[in-house]
């Protein structure tokens, strides 16, 4: 068992796992991932069986990739524990360093030069029984531990962030609303496709009402700027275009809405009504001023007689018999609704990201320095002594050059 633990927490094993993960990631680039199986059957008929059997069409969801990640996490847990113990043992490391034999010798008077240099790089000097102990960046000893811990947290919270939220894509016409399974209502007040400076920019103004009755203020959602209310997050996802006609009977006041994807005849008796032909975009000719706009192409049918085709703009109305047909804005937003298990679920992952960067900074830029020195020589100790050793060699070389 001890041997298994020793292998699992070894750096060699971690490197092997990392290399395998990288290799699988690289191989995954050879084939589009996560498509429907018929896609592979049609495009890769010769290798389809192999692709299917090895789950190569979705490497990142395959058992072997998940197993590798699991092993990597296990290795990471063991390493994190080891790093934690190591960071806690800083006091003992200092005590050990204080009695280490000298690795480099010092000429008479050089100890003072060393002390001056260590003071210039802001090292803390302590007098020991045999000489001096110089320390710096002791906080940096937590770097490697924090780095490993934060990667572990990123993986754990990341998996939760990918797996737990319920994601739904829904289209919604301005003025209408979407009711989710849990009773959350998302109402779309308006939808625009251009911002005030005329740039292409998809934006919906929405309101969210939670099942407990709490309601948000109207807020604009745009690409990159979703709206969060409670544990519901709404993204501006896509947009659609299609005929949208509101019909109102003038006699009895009944109303009906029609969302049309293709040509249709809107009539109550099959003889008189409105024939919807489609939506078109008109762009100004080259050299002409003006902006492009969309219009409806329709035709009135009266007692089976077809009138000439006509063009109407969104917002306009046409009366046919007892019915008023109002043409609504043809563009509508497609929203992505993400319902998280609890509010601030994402914050945990984002906190792990911050910890990762802090750990990395401590690891690379706050490396602990531990130097023991006496009249006869000195030795550089600590977890990563190379940099200090080289700096001191440079110092002596500069002194020699000066001399």
């Amino acid at each position, binding site marked *: 068992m001890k041997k298994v633990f020793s292998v699992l927490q070894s750096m060699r094993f971690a*490197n092997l796992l*990392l290399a395998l993960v990288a290799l699988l990631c690289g191989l995954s680039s050879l084939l589009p991932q996560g498509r429907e199986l018929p896609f592979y059957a049609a495009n890769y008929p010769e290798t389809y069986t192999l692709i299917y059997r090895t789950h190569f069409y979705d490497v990142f969801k395959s058992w072997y990739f998940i197993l590798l990640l699991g092993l990597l996490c296990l290795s990471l847990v063991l390493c994190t524990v080891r790093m934690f113990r190591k960071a806690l043992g800083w006091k003992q490391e200092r005590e050990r360093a204080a009695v280490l034999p000298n690795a480099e010798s010092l000429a008479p008077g050089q100890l003072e030069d060393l002390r001056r240099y260590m003071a210039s790089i802001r090292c803390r000097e302590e007098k020991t029984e045999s000489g001096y102990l110089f320390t710096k960046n002791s906080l940096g000893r937590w770097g490697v531990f924090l780095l490993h811990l934060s990667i572990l947290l990123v993986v754990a919270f990341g998996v939760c962030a990918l797996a737990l939220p319920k994601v739904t894509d829904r289209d919604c016409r301005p003025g209408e609303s979407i009711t989710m399974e849990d009773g959350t209502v998302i109402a779309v007040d308006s939808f625009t496709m251009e911002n005030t400076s005329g740039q292409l920019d998809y934006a919906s103004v929405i309101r969210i009402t939670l099942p407990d009755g709490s309601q948000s203020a109207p807020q604009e959602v745009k690409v*990159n*700027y979703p709206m969060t209310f409670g544990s519901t997050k709404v993204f501006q996802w896509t947009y659609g275009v299609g005929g949208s006609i509101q019909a109102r009977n003038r006699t009895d006041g009944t109303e009906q809405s029609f969302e049309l994807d293709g040509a249709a005849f809107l009539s109550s008796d099959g003889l008189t009504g409105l024939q919807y032909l489609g939506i078109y975009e008109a762009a100004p000719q080259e050299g002409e001023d003006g902006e492009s706009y969309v219009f409806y192409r329709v035709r009135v049918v009266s007692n089976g007689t077809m009138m000439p085709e006509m063009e109407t703009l969104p917002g306009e109305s046409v009366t046919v018999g007892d019915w008023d047909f109002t043409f609504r804005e043809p563009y509508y937003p497609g929203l992505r609704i993400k319902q998280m298990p609890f509010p601030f679920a994402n914050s945990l992952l984002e906190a792990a*990201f911050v910890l990762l960067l802090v750990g*990395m900074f401590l690891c690379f830029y706050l490396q602990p320095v531990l130097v023991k020195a006496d009249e006869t020589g000195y030795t550089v100790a600590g977890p990563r002594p190379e940099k200090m*050793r080289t700096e001191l060699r440079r110092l002596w070389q500069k002194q020699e050059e000066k001399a």
Partner: protein
Amino acid sequence: MKTVFFLSLGLYAAATLIQLAGAFGKWEKVKKTAWAVFLLGFLAHLVYFVWRGLVAQRLPLASQFEFACGFALCIPVVLLVARTRVNADWIATAGMAATALLMGYAATQRMEITELMPALRSFWFNFHIGAAALSYSAFLVAGVVALRYVLQHRKGESADSLRMKQLEQLSYRLVALGFLLLTVVIVIGAVWAEAAWSAYWTWDPKEVWALITWIIYTVYLHLRLRRQKSDLWLSWYVILAIPAFLFTFAGVNKLIPGLHSYG
């Protein structure tokens, strides 16, 4: 303003040639001239970059051309920092050549300034792309320094000499900087992806290759920490890692369609 771009490209190319001539002939004055020409090229490049940013009213890093241009701009910056540590001509030679080649690559891309598409209009845009350009530059210069190490080793210089130790450490420090910045790129990218695409990670080819690059350098940092391999071995590793981030930068966009295919 295209003239300024081509002027800087020409100056970089000229600096590389002069530097090579100076290195072969061991003429110190010629090498100094090369560095001065290179700095002039950098100045012209900076002017072009700032002008383009002012015209576009954003950080000009949105297209392949702009990113290559920004990436190339970061190399002289990293070189200038590296020179404060190790003043080795050969690093400058390779750095100059890399800058000229990248600018040459940029020149083959579409150069017109386009309006930023809605997906790219984000607070995170500048940090994500800017950190990527700096990160790749740090990896590239680390590779150049490692190459210098290998060449010195072939000339018979001892691995224990101060200069070799400095070269190895500079290479490591540049990798550490690039790695930190690449992590920033991935983290910011994840936060941005959540805001734009509703998921922190989508296994998009660019994300996958950024992860591959990250893993490759993680293995390097592990190996170096443990000192299980010689400095020469580690230097070869840093050199051989160059294609990984170059593929993440250009190859993925060209060869594998995905969410990051913006042009």
